[in-house]
């Protein structure tokens, strides 16, 4: 019974990880760089939900929607100001894109964390739960009310996002740019708009993930750091650039952590992810679902 419960709890966490990871994997897909400020979209979403719902007392759906909008907006602004040179300028910029991308998003992350600390204060904010039901009980399995509701909602949204990426017109454009930016631009795809869209999507999803978790985690300036690092892991696990891989990677990581913490060590709970990351990169660098890049 405990096994089932650990799986269930792990899957729920996995849904939130996946919501973070899917955005990161899309960004990697179209730009081939690591985006370090992803955790701050999560943080912004968490704050927006907590502030709007708890302080202004607005209805929860509005709070959730605002979180998505603010997260998406932030990501789009960042894309316009800091990310665009990565694909607009060639030559010199090409040679140190990795460096530029990591340092600029790293600096951005530092900036946003300290801005939150400065303007919102250090106190953690608690968001109201989506349901009044404290917990659901199925036989011996207990799961928190909000956790289950948020998890199911997250699952629904993940499904929607996946549909959008795989089936919709825009999603096809995203995948075209991911496969070949130059080719896509020749085929008449506005790669700028696609990039903006990808950042909007990933910022919105990360913010939603933060909003759904804030009743469990509390909003504070550096709340996004752990989820961001985890989302790197699942993106690698699932294969960089693969949205389905990110979802499955997220679920796998959630379950592995659940078991690892329960049976191996509570204190090292957040360490497992990194061990998994290194193992995957060394044994199967293309991830579980990625395609091996052909070199030379």
């Amino acid at each position, binding site marked *: 019974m405990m096994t089932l419960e650990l799986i269930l709890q792990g899957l729920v966490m996995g849904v939130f990880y996946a919501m973070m990871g899917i955005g990161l994997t899309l960004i990697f897909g179209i730009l081939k760089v690591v985006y370090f400020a992803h955790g701050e979209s999560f943080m912004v979403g968490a704050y927006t939900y907590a502030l709007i719902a708890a302080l202004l007392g607005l209805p929860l759906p509005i709070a959730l929607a605002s979180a998505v909008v603010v997260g998406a907006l932030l990501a789009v602004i960042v894309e316009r100001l800091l990310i665009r040179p990565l694909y607009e300028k060639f030559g*010199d910029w090409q040679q*140190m894109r*990795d*460096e530029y991308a990591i340092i600029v998003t790293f600096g951005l992350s530092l900036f946003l964390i300290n801005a939150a600390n400065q303007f919102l204060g250090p106190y953690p904010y608690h968001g109201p739960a989506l349901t009044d039901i404290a917990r659901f009980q199925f036989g011996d399995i207990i799961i928190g009310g909000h956790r289950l509701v948020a998890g199911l909602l997250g699952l629904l949204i993940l499904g929607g996002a996946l549909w959008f990426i795989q089936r919709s017109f825009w999603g096809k454009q995203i995948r075209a740019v991911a496969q070949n930016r130059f080719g896509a631009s020749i085929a008449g795809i506005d790669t700028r708009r696609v990039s903006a869209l990808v950042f909007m999507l990933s910022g919105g999803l990360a913010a939603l993930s933060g909003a759904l978790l804030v009743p469990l985690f509390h909003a504070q300036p550096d709340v996004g750091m752990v989820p961001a690092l985890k989302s790197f892991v699942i993106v*690698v696990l699932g294969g960089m650039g693969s949205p389905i891989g990110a979802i499955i990677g997220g679920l796998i990581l959630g379950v592995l952590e659940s078991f690892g913490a329960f049976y191996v060590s509570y204190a090292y709970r957040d360490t497992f992810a990194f061990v998994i990351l*290194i193992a995957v990169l*060394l044994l199967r*660098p293309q991830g579980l679902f990625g395609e091996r890049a052909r070199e030379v």
Partner: protein
Amino acid sequence: MNASHLRTRREFLVSLVFLAAVAAVPLFVTSGYLLGIVIVAMYYALLAIAWNLLAGYTGQFSLAPTAFAMIGAYGTGMASYHFGLPPAVGVPIAILVSAVIGMGLGRIVVPLRGPYLALTTIAFAEIVRHVARNAHEYTRGDFGMSVPLISSDRVMAFYLMLALLVAVQVGLYFLLRSHAGLYLQAIRDDETAAAGRGINVIFWKTVAFTVSGAICGFAGAMYVHFSGLASPDIGHIFETGLVLASVVIGGIGTMIGPLVGGFIVQFAAEGFREFGLRHMLVFAAMVILFVRFFRQGLWGLVKNAWDRLFGQGAARPARQVKEAGE
């Protein structure tokens, strides 16, 4: 003389002038506080130089420089805390341990490039930090271990750190001047081509990781014997950010850039205390602006200004050659 050597020698000479100026600081400044700032600046400069060897010269974008500083710090820290060994024994142990771990990591990540390398090394850094924080019986956990001071005299500590910095800079100069310097830069520019020209890529990458790890470990070990505490904060992800920022602000892939960058970042962090609460905010903004608009770093700006003023480069602007060629 070939161009790489000329460039390296010019940068090395400028860095020697800079180091000479630093060496003169205690003659004029008696404040322990100011000397302390300069000592910490030298620590960051060392990490920046070591990271620049990997990222700037070899093209290996590792995110683990402070993890190696931590390995060095805990190497000597645990030797002292658990076995009562003096720094004279602890520091060499720290260098050895960080060099060996650097070699192991370097060998393991040989096939990885770009983002994959960045993620593997950040995962490695986080594992090291988590172990230091949670293996309480050995590391004393989050609060760290008290470590004896290498010298209660600030000026002494200052010159010890400076000696290390000079030694590293000179050593690096000879490394870069030898064929190794050319090999590392060749690997940075094109690994496949390097291998095709007979350069043993695996070997030289591993060398770069080993040397870089050893320098970071050495710096970390010296640093804790100055600050008196080996704590997991040494390896915090923000610290890595400071190291990268030092290199980028100073000028990546140069001998002088990281050295000066380390000083600038530390002084800026201290100077911005004047802004009270906002110092980290201002600092982060500065990092973004620099990397966004002055990507060649300060050394690049200085060099361009010099060329423009004194003409030597005006005859052949690199940009035009390139445009003509494409």
